[in-house]
């Protein structure tokens, strides 16, 4: 997997600008916040110009006199205080308005991503690990929030620098130019800093990530490490990474100490010297007053102050651009699931009869996985599908459930073309039974009905009773309101499966599609599940993929697939008699039982 830096370097400047443009487009929705922030920063900067000027005037006009009315002192102080209050209020507004705008922007991006993801087809999810998707929605968007900080500090900084320069210009032009001469040096030091620091920073984060992976892995595999007596070696390997990380931190410290705020400080001092020199020369020309010196030197500080903050935030720019790139890839994706051609909810599936007519399927840019598949399953009957790994069994299911679009042929349910049945009908009437049970965080009621408010508590219980889950649920401390922690193991594997069976049945589908798992479970659980499956199949049409023939021995018909083609079809007995592929499979499994 390529790193962020690699990705960043692979983007052309044009692409980067385009991404930044689109990101700002998301921000445009909340332009009021950002505009408010800009107005506030303008007020803030203007106050920063006025306050020193005010003191300059006060010092050079009043404090040079021999006497001064008390009233003038108090009124001046009051004005100054007012100015300070206005500036503080503006400062608060700048930061708060901007950050809220940024927050709304990033959340709207998250919402857009999540909604888009739900529209994508299973093909996307089958090839993308869930972890990386979560990263996009959660972590990348967080990078974009940091990215916006670049603009905040940039905006504040630029306003500060420009207004400070204007103030200096209005005070003494030559001195102002003397200070301005240092701007190129500043920009140079920013450029040098960002060059050295970004690669050092990345290296440091990479090492930290390595450290954390090592620790996590060590804890997970601790038994093996201890059983194989590998503690010394693992320790040595860790110490090496630990040391490398220390070195990288030391480099980072050095770079920051040399090139970050200390150098900005040094440039400030040099600019100060230059300005004072120019001002000093002016004493020969005319009046040079203390107050003016105070104001000018204050403006020089204000000119240099924001630089360090801006430099600090630079590193976020890169991450933000890459995060934007990845987010837009999802938002632009056209990898939708198969679409239906009818939109309303006229009921079409009543009995649940299934027919495949000459169906073929190939993955995009791939070989044909299913070829000329034809079979019929009458309503209420059961069909078992067997075959080696790669024979096309899972693909058949993916097609039936409209996870993937098939190529040629027709699929009919109760005589209606699969593509024309409304989506809602399909989802309601076809139930998928996965033997890898998936539970959600919530109570049992929630796990069985999920978000479907049409399922009453009684229906939930009825479903649970059907699959034999009601018994153990009643034993639990809060029965149906017991909260399930998917990561934990308070329920046994068998119990979890029964709950997911109840979920499928609660929707009362007419057709059941059964996708069997390959791993073996202990015999007791196995029996329980087989019994429940039998009950679930009553009164419903069933298509079952089986790895163990014992599951489908009693199916009305069995289909044998080999390399995408139907090679045998019949009942268990008739297939055994044929002494063909099915017979082979059967003998192989039976043999191991003896």
């Amino acid at each position, binding site marked *: 997997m390529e790193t962020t830096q690699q990705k960043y370097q692979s983007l052309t400047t044009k692409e980067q600008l385009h991404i930044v443009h689109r990101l700002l487009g998301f921000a445009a929705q909340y332009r009021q916040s950002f505009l408010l922030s800009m107005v506030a920063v303008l007020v803030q900067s203007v106050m920063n110009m006025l306050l020193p000027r005010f003191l300059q005037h006060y010092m050079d006009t009043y*404090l040079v006199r*021999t*006497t*001064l009315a008390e009233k003038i*002192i108090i009124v001046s102080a009051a004005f100054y205080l007012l*100015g*300070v209050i206005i*500036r*503080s209020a503006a400062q608060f507004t700048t*930061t708060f308005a901007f*950050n*809220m705008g940024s927050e709304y922007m990033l959340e709207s991006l*998250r919402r857009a991503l999540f*909604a888009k993801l739900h529209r994508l087809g299973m093909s996307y*999810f089958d090839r993308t690990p*869930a972890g990386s*998707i979560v990263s996009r929605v959660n972590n990348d968007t967080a990078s974009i929030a940091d990215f916006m900080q670049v603009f905040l500090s940039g905006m504040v900084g630029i306003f500060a620098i420009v207004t400070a320069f204007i103030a200096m210009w209005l005070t003494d032009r030559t001195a102002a130019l003397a200070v301005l001469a240092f701007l190129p040096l500043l920009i140079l030091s920013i450029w040098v800093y960002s060059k050295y620091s970004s690669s050092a920073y990345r290296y440091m984060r990479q090492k930290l990530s390595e*450290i954390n*992976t090592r*620790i996590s892995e060590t*804890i*997970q*595999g*601790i*038994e093996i490490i201890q*059983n194989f007596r590998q503690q010394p070696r693992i*320790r040595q390997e860790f110490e090496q990474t*630990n*040391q490398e*990380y*220390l070195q990288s931190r*030391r480099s980072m*410290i050095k770079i920051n*100490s040399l090139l970050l705020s*200390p150098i900005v400080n*040094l440039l400030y001092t040099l600019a*100060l*010297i230059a300005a*004072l*020199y120019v001002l000093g020369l002016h*004493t020969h020309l005319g009046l*040079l007053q203390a*107050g003016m*010196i105070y104001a000018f030197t204050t403006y020089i*500080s204000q000119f240099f102050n924001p630089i360090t903050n801006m430099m600090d935030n630079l590193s976020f720019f890169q991450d933000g651009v890459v995060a934007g790139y990845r987010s837009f890839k999802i938002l632009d994706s056209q990898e939708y699931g198969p679409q239906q051609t009818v939109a309303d909810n006229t009921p079409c599936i009543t009995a649940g009869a299934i027919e495949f007519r000459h169906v073929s399927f190939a993955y995009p840019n791939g070989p044909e996985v299913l070829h000329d598949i034809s079979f019929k399953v009458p309503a209420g009957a059961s069909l078992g599908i067997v075959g080696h790994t790669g024979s096309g069994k899972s693909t058949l299911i993916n097609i039936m459930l409209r*996870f993937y679009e098939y190529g040629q042929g027709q699929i009919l349910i109760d005589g209606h073309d699969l593509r024309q049945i409304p989506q809602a009908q399909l989802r*309601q009437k076809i139930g*998928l039974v996965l033997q890898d049970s*998936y539970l959600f965080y919530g109570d049992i009621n929630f796990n069985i009905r*999920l*978000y*479907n408010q049409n399922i009453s508590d009684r229906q939930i219980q009825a479903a649970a009773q059907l699959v034999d889950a009601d018994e153990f649920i009643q034993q639990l401390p809060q029965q149906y309101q017991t909260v399930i922690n998917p990561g934990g193991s308070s329920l046994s594997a068998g119990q979890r499966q029964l709950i997911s069976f109840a979920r499928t049945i609660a929707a009362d589908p007419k057709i059941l599609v059964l996708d069997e798992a*390959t*791993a073996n479970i*202990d*015999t*007791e659980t196995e*029996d329980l599940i087989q019994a429940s499956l039998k009950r679930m199949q009553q009164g419903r049409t069933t298509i079952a993929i089986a790895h163990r023939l*014992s599951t489908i021995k009693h199916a009305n018909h069995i289909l044998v697939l080999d390399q995408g083609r139907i090679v045998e079809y019949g009942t268990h007995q008739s297939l055994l008699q044929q002494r063909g592929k099915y017979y082979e499979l059967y003998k192989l*499994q039976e043999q191991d039982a003896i």
Partner: protein
Amino acid sequence: MGIFKKLWWFFYKQKRRYLIGILFLFLTALSNLIIPRAIGQFADWANQRQLTAGHLGQLLGIILAAGLGQYIFRYAWRNQIWGGAADLERQLRSQLFWHYLNMDDTFFQRHRIGDLMARCTNDITAVQNVAGIGILTFADSIITGGTTIIAMILFVDWKLTLIAIIPLPFLALMAAVLGRLLHQRFAQAQAAFSQLSNKTQESMTGIKVIKTLGQETEDIADFNQQVDRTIAINRQVNFIDALFDPTTGFIIGLTFVITILYGSHLILQQVITIGQLIAFVGYINNLVWPMFAIGRLFNVLERGNASYDRIQSILHEPSLIAEHPNANLSLNRPDLDFNIQSFTYPDGQQPVLSKVQFTLPFGQTLGIVGRVGSGKSTIVKLLLRRFDQYQGLIKIGGHDIRSYSLDTLLQTIGYVPQTSFLFSTTVQNNIRFGDYATNQQQVQKAAQLGDIDQDIQNLTDGYQTLVGERGISLSGGQKQRVSIARALVKQPQILILDDSTSAVDAKTEVEITHNLRTNAPKQSTIIISQRLRSVMDADQIIVLEAGQIIQRGKHVDLIQQPGWYADMWQRQQMNY
């Protein structure tokens, strides 16, 4: 403050570095005093028309020297102090890691992996902050604050100083209060973010279920609700965060106001000059950072203290695994004599094993079967000496297993666990995990015995393919076979297979068993399994139920006896 005392061992060891750092801090503070004074002097000379070229040169020269000095001094203390913090971090991490490596099973049951990781990341960061920014703020606030106030008193006026700095403690207070509030809100924001992450993870992993039930719209609505909550919490964080700078500016502004009020009088009374007032105002700016720092200091110390305590408490937990001195026995073709009267887990109430006794002569095979939770794996745990406290005796090669060194004992035993964990490295390194010096030939031989050699060669990079969490993921059956190869490569004298073929199909299991019998050097084997088929050919089989042996014998005998074994055999037959 107690945390400084607790970390004294570190500061003492690094005293040279910290003393140098503080020295340079002091020098920085001194050079900080020069510029405001110089500007003030410049202003006065300008006002009094006494600004000659000589004077100008002097002033600029001093400012230049101060500026260069500052640069060098700052570099020096940053290097020393931040460097010290980085060192502490490395040390603590090292200590924790070595400790983890030597802890026993109960330790890992007491502490979830998330907590153990947090000790190594967040807690270490908090502690190293004490040695970094903690020391800095402590020293700097005293040094800079102190020298600046002294300068204000010396160069300007003590009365003005006292009055003007009245608002400044409020700066420290504000920093402390807001800092704590921010920390709390931030923790809430972290929690909300975590929840959102979990929600996304759940929806994406369970996408098939959601799609099948056609509930995408509702799921999106649920997500949006959580986003709304996140926004509300982040708003609070932003609010407090945005308060820091304005409040600082306001309090400093107050200081300026006081300075104007009282300072004006002093100027009119000619106690001080305008230049001195300008210098004074410059010094006030110097005080901002130290005041702010004091406020932050308490937060940093508090957090560092709590984290240090957490780390120390983990480091002080002892391990139950212990070596014994008489450790120079060696093992050769050992017999196993297992005789446990009773064993209870350290934090358990009931005995997990009672009166379990069996003998396994070298070279024979023992099968252990029984229901889930009957104690099968516990027997293995005792053999591996993961627990040493029990009533009874386990003898191997004629001696108590506790009298051998762990190295000797565990070299002799090859253990293949139920769940196969692969490390993020090459397949080759995973197989020769017990000894990286093993050559490819030996690795391959072990892989062949485990019937995984062919599969490995079919991978894109063969034996050099990266597996584990950061590599490609192998199927359950493949992982188990790699695990088996890993145990076999060191040619153990006792091989323990703990339900290690559950994900392997029947045909392959037969292959492996056959390989072990014919091609591997002679060894004792213990097979634990759910499938009776796997232990069929064992020289003896024991059936466990609630920690006790209820049946024993050979397969042919056991299927004749009415009991659990025969029952199970029937049922497992029917499933095929």
